[in-house]
């Protein structure tokens, strides 16, 4: 190899190293900003917990005005907006969080819940699927997906997710209830009764399981679904989406 080529090779190695160094320094600066944002977010959480909701949101919005890339602050803001019932603003913030931090299972699950509140059931199912993909060992995520799929009338997905919910959260009554509803939707009344009984075995006073069993006895063939409604916090609220037995 020619001497000049070798010298060029040396220069390239140095140039790449210097470029990486600059990149790392910039990333480090950003990381320090994130640490600061984390502290502000923790402070906002305390404000929110003490009932000072507006102050908490204002503090986070102020931080985001200075540092718009702060995922921590944006996530916290979204959670607080959601807790205050400002669904549209929360959804907007959560979408931004997922844009910069697409592996955040918690944000995806929250966005699914918020979209459900806004009446976008298919959008909610999409984000619930994302949350399950990112956090597959969390049975509650599968239970939520199963509940959403049930309400959308997607029997296969509801059953599949319900089975996973029970697999990863077999000690949680809501997981069995979600599977029970999925089986009911699939026409398997006996299987549904078994699932509701499993839930009752775990929590004999579970109103959701008792309610579901009563409704199952009244409509053993298929669950009488209402139009998709806008309130779902967790699987145990599923029964609220069924028409009343009376």
């Amino acid at each position, binding site marked *: *190899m*020619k*001497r*000049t080529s*070798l*010298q060029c*090779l*040396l*220069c*390239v*190695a*140095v140039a*790449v*190293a*210097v470029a*990486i*160094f600059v*990149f*790392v*320094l910039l*990333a*480090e600066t950003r*990381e320090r900003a994130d640490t600061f944002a984390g502290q502000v977010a923790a402070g906002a959480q305390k404000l929110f917990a003490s009932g000072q909701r507006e102050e908490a949101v204002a503090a986070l919005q102020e931080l985001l005005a200075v540092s718009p890339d702060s995922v921590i602050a944006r996530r916290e803001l979204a959670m607080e907006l959601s807790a205050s019932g400002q669904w549209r603003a929360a959804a907007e913030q959560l979408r931004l969080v997922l844009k910069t931090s697409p592996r955040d299972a918690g944000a995806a699950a929250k966005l699914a819940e918020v979209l459900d509140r806004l009446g976008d059931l298919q959008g909610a199912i999409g984000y619930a699927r994302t949350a399950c993909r990112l*956090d*597959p*060992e*969390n*049975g*509650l995520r599968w239970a939520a997906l199963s509940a959403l799929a049930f309400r959308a009338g997607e029997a296969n997905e509801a059953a599949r997710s319900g089975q996973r919910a029970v697999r*990863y*959260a077999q*000690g*949680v*009554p*809501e997981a069995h209830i979600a599977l029970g509803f999925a089986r009911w939707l699939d026409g398997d009344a006996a299987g549904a009764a078994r699932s509701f009984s499993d839930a009752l075995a*775990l*929590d004999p006073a579970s109103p959701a399981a008792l309610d579901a069993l009563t409704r199952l006895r009244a409509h053993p063939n298929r669950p009488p679904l209402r139009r998709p409604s806008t309130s779902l916090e967790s699987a145990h609220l599923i029964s609220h989406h069924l028409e009343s037995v009376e």
Partner: protein
Amino acid sequence: MTAGRRAPAERSDSVLAQTDRRAFLLASAVVVWITVVVRRLVQPEASISWTYQTLVLCLLVAAIAGRWLMGERASTESRDLAWRPPLLWGAVVLAAILPYLGSVGNGFVSDDFGLAMIARESRSAAEAMRSTGLIAFYRPVTMLVWWLGDRLWHGAPAGYHLLAIALHVANSLLVYALGRRLIGSSYGALVGALLFAVHPLHVEPLCWPAAMSDLLCAGFGLASLLALLIYHTSAAKGGRALALSGALISFALALFSKEVALALPGVVVLVGILGGQADRRSVAVSGVSYVVVLAAYLWWRMHVLGGLGGYALPLSFWNTVFPSGPLLLMGDFLFPTHTTLLARIGPIGWWLVLVAMAAVVLWLLAGLDRVPARRLWLWVGFVFVLAVPSWTFRWQPSASFEWTRFAYLPTVGLAWLFGDVCAGRSIGWRRSGVATGLVLVGCSLLTVWYVTPWTQAGRLARSAVQAGAGLVRKLGGPDHPPTLYVRGLPEAYQGAPVLANCYPQAMNLAVGREVPVRVVTAAPRSGGVHPDVMPFWKLKPGEYLVSFEANTGAMRIVRSGGAAGTRSPAGGQR
């Protein structure tokens, strides 16, 4: 060099050579310095960790270009030490033992409990050897060692730690014996073996009995290479056949110890071509023989496991690790900085360590022209070829020296490279010897220090298991053991695993019977419960959610399955 610049021949060449040398040293100094600074800055969890291996790649490119610019100044003189063999061997043995004496009383951590449980439950050596370990692995030699440990010293952890040190001693001696033949200098071989013996990158396989498979695999692999070199150089026909048989048997044993040996046939070809001691026929015969043994091993493995086994890796994973494995390995070898530990000595101490490491690497780079090109390719090729299987084992960049057990065998090539450079510099060997001695002492001290997290990890694991076992005895009777959902178990302590796996097996071993235990953790684990799920989990009578408190070593009951579930400590009745 260009012909036009050569006019006043000798003087011009000499000036150009000096300029090239200076340019190379300056360039490599910049890259080395940036590499250590980035090593200091980048945290193990950072998403920018790919930068580190890219920097090592820059360093490699600079080294290749610089070596080419500097040319070769290797001397043909023999650099042998006047030391007698017992002294040479004794130095290697001591270097391999002393840094690890503190690890003998460390106890078991993580996977150790699972392997000990398999060994305990196996009724015969054959049953243990048939076991596929904790996941779909097939390592009969390793499992036989675990079974023997259970029968010979009743599975006491100290026995396995002592065995690991003994294996490391044997491996270091093999590194010396092989280096003596490949470098052709007892001084170079000794330095290589000493560096291998004391290098802090080898703390994980030495302190973790579950990683003994790496020590066994390296031992059989190096023995196989030694027998191969004897085969290449032996004149007697019978001796050659015997040596080749020994090499192949050792290779098979290495394969049955750990899958890292899969790449050994590549090294066999490299040693045959670049070792300079074999004719083409010998290289062809040995290469084909190794491939036949490898094929037979793979067939048998698939027959036993019903597939290749190992970790199930998606194709996308290969795209992310394919080029980075050997670079990470080389980077960790050149800059063995345990970020978590070094952070404890303050910024000035940190920077002093980094400056020392940078100086050693520069010293090594400046001496590359003393190593013949053939051997240089052999050492680098050794690392790259043997690092191939480690790519399949999810080797990730880490500043706390996790997963470095996969570096144990490949880094032999880098130890030889260091020894070769030292041998080349040993014309004024007193000065070179002092520098080498400082490097070795520095490495030994780092090793002794890097062993300490393993000691603490062993203590934590022991206290968690003892606390859990105590609670089981208190809460349950002999026929009705309570079901424990355990949270707060320390997964790792400063890079050393504590109870990332196998807590149920540890409890079974401690209690002496099967105890239903489930670990509350977000990490994917068979039988584990996600921490987000646990608050909604309804406990049945006889079930307890308990929390381990590492500070006090106590296991606290957080909630139980109702009043009816409370068992009396004496009778175990509800």
